[in-house]
């Protein structure tokens, strides 16, 4: 990881698009292998899903995206009907943190990523 300069964005500090690419593979494998949550991914095309995981991570890394809270609600409303709740959200948070640790991202950056992801909780869970 390159030396962080004060005016670098979180996304740049983590390593930008290259970091997203490295993280997607690790993260998606963790999610699919987790019996607590993998049923939510049963009926989605894996290629498309990998692209969506990229969108997810880009957003969580504070990268450029134009998702709104309403988009997050819509994207997950089908899952909420399937029973998506806090426990599943927590599991995803766990894998997000685990992925970044594996990539040796510094703790202070992981905390920032976690708080961005956390901020979407109510929208993702449709509350």
């Amino acid at each position, binding site marked *: 990881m390159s030396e962080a300069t004060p005016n670098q964005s979180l996304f740049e500090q983590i390593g930008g698009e290259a970091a997203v690419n490295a993280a997607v593979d690790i993260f998606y494998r963790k999610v*699919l292998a987790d019996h607590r949550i993998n049923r939510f991914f049963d009926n989605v095309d*894996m290629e498309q899903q990998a*692209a969506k995981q*990229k969108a997810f991570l880009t957003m969580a890394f504070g*990268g450029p995206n134009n998702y709104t809270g309403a988009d997050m609600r819509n994207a997950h409303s089908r899952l909420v009907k399937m029973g998506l709740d806090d426990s599943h959200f927590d599991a995803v948070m766990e894998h997000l943190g685990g992925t970044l640790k594996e990539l040796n991202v510094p703790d202070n950056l992981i905390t920032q990523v976690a708080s961005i992801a956390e901020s979407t909780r109510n929208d993702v869970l449709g509350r």
Partner: protein
Amino acid sequence: MALTKILLDEHETVCHEGETVLEALLRDNVDIPFSCKQGACQSCMVRSLDVPPPAHAQKGLKDVLCKQNHFLACLCYPEQDMSITLGHQPEYFTEGTVIAKELLNPETVLLTIQCKDALDYYAGQFVNLKRADGLIRSYSISNSRRHAEKLTFHIRRLAGGKFSEWVHQELNIGDTIAVSDPQGLCYYLPDKMEQSLLLIGTGSGLAPLAGIIHEALEEGHSGPIHLYHGSRDVDGLYWIDEMRELADKYENFHYTPCVSRSDAPEGVAQGRANDIAMVNIPDLKGWRVYLCGHPDMVNQAKRMAYLNGASLQDIYSDAFHVASPTLD
């Protein structure tokens, strides 16, 4: 260069210096999907119909997509005028004549079609066959690129299936049929010759895999090549002897026929092809995987292969989707 022109479905957009194709199209109020504008999400993927896109605009795309001139609009600073499409090109058909027809097993016919124009395809791709009344279905090419004008297909008869029943019962040697340009991303490229290959097919899903295997062996692929061909019962398998002969001839080619619903005779494995393959080869890190046939098998095997270590970039598949899920 200051200005380039982007032609999209008869609509021309001028792209200024320092502007990406995506920015130019959005400025021109063209409705194109996008999200990150960073080359990360791939939602802005489009395809060039004429010139190859600049390499920097293809970052992160599968090599098969690159070869077909797909690129990310948000990364593309065009170097020359381009004609692009958001979806697929209008289809082009050539005339084909049936020159041979024989049964591979009680439910699958081997059809050989001589095409008027040689087709440019990669082993494993499929074409759309169009009957005179316009009925269209997709079928995978089962031969390698050696005979680009003579294509073979394995067509499985589905009870009540409009196209397949017609092929089995009415289509005769000498009849003509329209053959589309080859399509699909499930194909073999002779680039990493030492890579290990796993191929799993059910039923007529052997067709594209057979093409890929012949192509790979003819090109001198040196890595191990493992084929698992499955069906409910032995009647649904075919080319058992041919594949065994191939395995005798090439040291790096391995063949396992599998039956899932009935007792397996000597030399045939008992169980579903994808289950048996994953048990035999638990670590797929670095492997290239090809999956063809029943959509349920393809989806399950995709996930299993990925969880066993194969990278998504290295998993190629064609699910033989039919109107109702009765194919296996």
